[in-house]
């Protein structure tokens, strides 16, 4: 049993509740014990850091300190690419300077909290590959995703900058989605937009440019013959799924591309019913995925 200090983020409990729900459903099947950080705050998704860097660093240091208090937890886990990126950025500064860390900890002191350098904070994707292991994941698959063509969509915050996120030849975290899709028995569809931006950060500032990005990547995936996309980022999911009808209008083509959260894809392969994974809650119904999985279940019986 892997016990983790679990930071679900805001959007996974807000506008994409199926993400947090499916994570909670899937965790026991992978022997992951989620100790939820109910008291922790929003990572600021880069916007608070844009407003005031020290404020973002302090707010995230608070989350890290709370995670470090969870007894027996081996690491902190998140399910949001954006949280991963925003938190890694703050952690990079906090870990780089003892003086700065002391300065930030002084602000946390009245609450009895203090962040100690060296937290391990991993997105569920990284944890799957690095802690659980692909072989272990493969051995737990009950319903392999045979013939399901899945396009990875990472989200910027979890692939760049490489150095901050610990991506190199030995830890190719920017290729983990492909590895996980394969381990689950699916077929990886590579397409131009898989590591590009969904456009969400500018959706209130330049809606057309934002949705053009989402629409273009979805279109690329359609052209590459993907059945669905999978993403570890709920904010990407908002632009790719919730806003997909609007994106269709901007790029003037039909898309109808289902977008799955990472725990949903894992859950499907582990034999969980699509409805239990909240897949009925998407704006673009993942019909192609669900029809496919039921037919496989039927075939196996």
């Amino acid at each position, binding site marked *: 049993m892997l016990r983790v200090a679990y930071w679900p983020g805001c959007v996974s409990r807000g506008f994409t509740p199926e993400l947090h729900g499916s994570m909670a459903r899937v965790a026991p099947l992978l022997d992951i014990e989620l100790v939820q950080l109910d008291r922790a705050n929003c990572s600021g998704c880069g916007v608070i850091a844009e407003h005031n860097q020290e404020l973002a660093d302090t707010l995230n240091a608070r989350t890290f300190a709370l995670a470090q208090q969870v007894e027996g937890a081996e690491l902190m886990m998140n399910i949001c690419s954006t949280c991963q990126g925003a938190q890694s950025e703050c952690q990079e500064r906090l870990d780089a300077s003892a003086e700065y860390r002391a300065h930030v900890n002084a602000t946390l002191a009245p609450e009895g909290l203090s962040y100690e350098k060296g937290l391990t904070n991993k997105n569920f994707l990284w944890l799957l590959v690095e802690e659980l292991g692909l072989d272990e994941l493969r051995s737990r698959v009950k319903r392999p995703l045979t013939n399901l063509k899945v396009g990875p969509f990472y989200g910027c915050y979890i692939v760049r900058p490489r150095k901050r996120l610990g991506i190199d030849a030995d830890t190719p975290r920017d290729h983990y989605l492909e590895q996980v899709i394969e381990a689950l028995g699916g077929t990886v569809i590579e397409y131009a937009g898989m590591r590009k931006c969904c456009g969400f950060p500018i959706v209130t500032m330049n809606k057309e440019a934002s949705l053009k990005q989402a629409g273009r990547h979805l279109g690329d995936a359609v052209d590459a013959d993907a059945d669905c996309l999978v993403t570890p980022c709920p904010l990407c999911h908002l632009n790719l799924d919730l806003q997909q009808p*609007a994106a269709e209008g901007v790029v003037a083509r039909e898309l109808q591309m289902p977008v799955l959260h990472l725990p949903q894809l894992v859950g499907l392969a582990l034999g969980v019913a699509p409805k239990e994974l909240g897949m009925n809650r998407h704006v673009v119904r993942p019909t192609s995925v669900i029809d496919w999985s039921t037919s496989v279940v039927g075939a196996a019986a």
Partner: protein
Amino acid sequence: MAETHRPPEQFKLRMRRYDPESGEAPYWDEHTIELEPHRSVLEGILQAKARFDGSIGIRCSCRAAICGSCGVRINGEPGLACHTHLDHARASAKDGVIEIEPMGNMPVIKDLIVDMDAVHWKKIQRVTPWLLAKQPVPEREYVVAKDAMVDVTQSMACIQCGACVSDCLAMEVDPGFIGPAALAKAYRFVGDPRDDRQRERLVDLSEDPQGIFDCTHCFKCVEACPKDVNPMGQIMRLRRIAISDQHIVDANNGERHEAALTTLVRDYGLLHEAELVPRSYGGNSWFGKFHPAAGMELLSLLPTAIKAIARGKIGIKLALFGHKIPAADLQAVKRIYQTVEGRSERYELNLYISGEDEDERTPVGVAAGGTDGGEDPAVAGEGSAS
């Protein structure tokens, strides 16, 4: 010189060739060159040009990552050909063949040479890239506090190679976006204490729909830059100064969006998504949704919202009231805001300038570092498994 001498090896180069004047389509051209593995991709290209095909177009000069002439894409990633070792390039190649293409977002003049004038330099000119000095101009040199200038040295490290422009994802969908290189250059003057037009510059860059708020925060430029200029970081600083110091409220919702998100996290501890959109359009208060601009946007979002509610994706209660962290924690968050925002000056640690502490980074598990706070009985309830 390499520390240990390694004999020359063969490397395969696959180059994108294109001559717009020929009327022919672009094509791939492969050559095998022989060089020591630590030599640069540029040297490889030049050997192919010398030995096999003199018509290969590549722009270069210093061969030492100073002049910024030889920007290309190597295995799909932007960088300087003279600053990339052949063995590293081969290691990152999909099939062992080093793939070299011209940079993106700019028209190709020939083969690996792109038209920097048509895009990059136009954008640089757009930001008035010179000092508009405070008056009166001193008779001799300016005397400026050392710290004040250190702040802009990072953006001054730019060698104008265009690598960041090549892969800017905002520019990919919105070619008019001023872009990372030019905005980093803009910060070089906005952050210069001798410049007299900070406010005018920032009003201009904030109000331009393709200005600082058009950056999609994708980190592509941060990754692309061979000189660690961190263009996106400079854009964030432009936003910060425009909003927090100059109090510029722009027509692109940039200021309102930042204010709304920052305030919502202060008041809820978590992001209240349903409030973010109306406040970003209509103003940063609960009443923002009644502003005509917010009304228009909300109306356009209505079909999406209805669908999301019908699917059970978004609950009515959540949409109306948001979600909050426990009261005691919310108090703690508010206190953090008060303390940090109450400082007379913003504290900004820039690792480019300060560097990291010398002790090495040793990642350990979260629970490995027992903290003083861990003994606080008030936080014992944290361990509620979901």
